[in-house]
């Protein structure tokens, strides 16, 4: 009896932990990468780097403008849109769903990039 109870308690702990995790962050599923997977895009010389960024679902991407000229980060499909970002200003967006998100700078539309969320 004693041995069995210990075994059940040992199994239950991670299950409860996972249930708690699911309750706090509904978009996270059991197959996900860690939700803390954040990524950065640097804006240098009128270009986004990396131009294509691949992140797990739930990741927060932060863009930093390192140019002397203001830029924006605007989703081509209207999913996200930053205010104008001057030198060293940042913009962040958390991607809750898988998919491909093309974006551009609405001030300098030749500047384009893509976030792939999987």
């Amino acid at each position, binding site marked *: 009896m004693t041995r069995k109870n210990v075994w059940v308690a040992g199994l239950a702990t991670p299950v409860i932990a996972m249930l708690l995790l699911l309750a706090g962050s509904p978009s996270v599923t059991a197959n996900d990468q860690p939700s803390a997977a954040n990524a950065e895009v640097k804006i240098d*010389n*009128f*270009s986004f780097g990396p131009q294509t960024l691949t992140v797990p679902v739930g990741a927060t991407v932060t863009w930093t403008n390192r140019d002397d000229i203001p830029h*924006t980060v605007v989703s081509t499909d209207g999913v996200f849109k930053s*205010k*104008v970002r001057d030198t060293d200003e940042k913009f962040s967006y958390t991607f809750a769903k898988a998919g491909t998100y093309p*974006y551009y700078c*609405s001030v300098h*539309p*030749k500047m384009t990039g893509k976030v792939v969320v999987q």
Partner: protein
Amino acid sequence: MLTENKWFGEGKIQGRRLRYEGQPQNVWPVPFEFDGNKNDSRQLSTQNATNHGGQVTDKKQDFIDQKLQDLNNDGIDRRGFLKCMAWAGTGLVWTMSGGIPVSRAFAKSMDRHAGKVGDFSFVQISDSHMGFNKPANPDVVATLQAAVDKINGLAQPPEFLLHTGDISHLSKQEQFDNVDQILKSASAKDVFFVPGEHDVLDDNGKSYLERYGKSAQGAGWYSFDKKGVHFIGLVNVMNLKAGGLGSLGGEQLEWMEKDVKHLKHSTPIVVFAHIPLWSVYPEWGWGTQDSAQALAYLKKFGSVTVLNGHIHQTMQKVEGNVTFHTAMSTAFPQPQPGKADSPGPMKVPAEQLRTLLGITDVNYVRGQHSLAVVDSTLG
């Protein structure tokens, strides 16, 4: 149809021959003929002219001198400044040095002693980027003020000013306020604006329109007439699409077609907009994707002058009856197309800065086919 533009990079003028051609009644008779450019368009930048001026060979210089003597009734040493200028087409002139009349038509029009003053002149300023404070120019207030001082010192006071956009750096009210305040000290009281992309950030152009576009159409386009010349201010910085260039849009094009329909073919036309209406360097977004349609409406006119900003350097092209010209910024220079990693501000030594900033003086003489355009630097 527009023909393909070619950029003439450093060193490429040398070895090309100078040739007299065309319309001697109207033109400065020493145009550059660029081998390798098979179409009828020519394109140069101020920096190019500066870089290459000293490379004109002695033989070519002799030829230039001979030609110059034919014109030298006005006591102006053209040999000196020819080294830093290039003639690029019918009736339009271009120089690095401030205030020097550089074409025969222009010399006459500017020479008050001869009693021949042009019918009127106006000045284009551009890209004042009020609020910019980075190392390329930490004091854009001072350089805009220097531009106004330059305007106030012109031999023939301009009737009005055109500002071809990027008035502000970040579309902020205090930045617009600053520019308006400085421009109040200009001798010319009327200023006609078109927006640059920096003037319509975040609010879709609302504050720009409230301030500058109350009597304008749509996103801020309009036209007006001055002494027989029809001016058209266009907006090509709104609703830019990913991967694309400047854009006029269907509504504006429709308006423009109607606007010019009733005009006589002999009416001189001046079109001004922020982003070049010709394909300067699409890789950097220096062009307007639907400009060909706008230019098609202007085909019937004998004289069309297109004035743009955005690229912070002078460049020009002549295409049939259309002369394209871009102005310097009053704030900071930008690199020649493709000559840097990006079109960002060009950092130059402080003492050089004002030699790369400037204004554009445009002179209209009734009966002359084209308008004379002269760029003057601030230093």
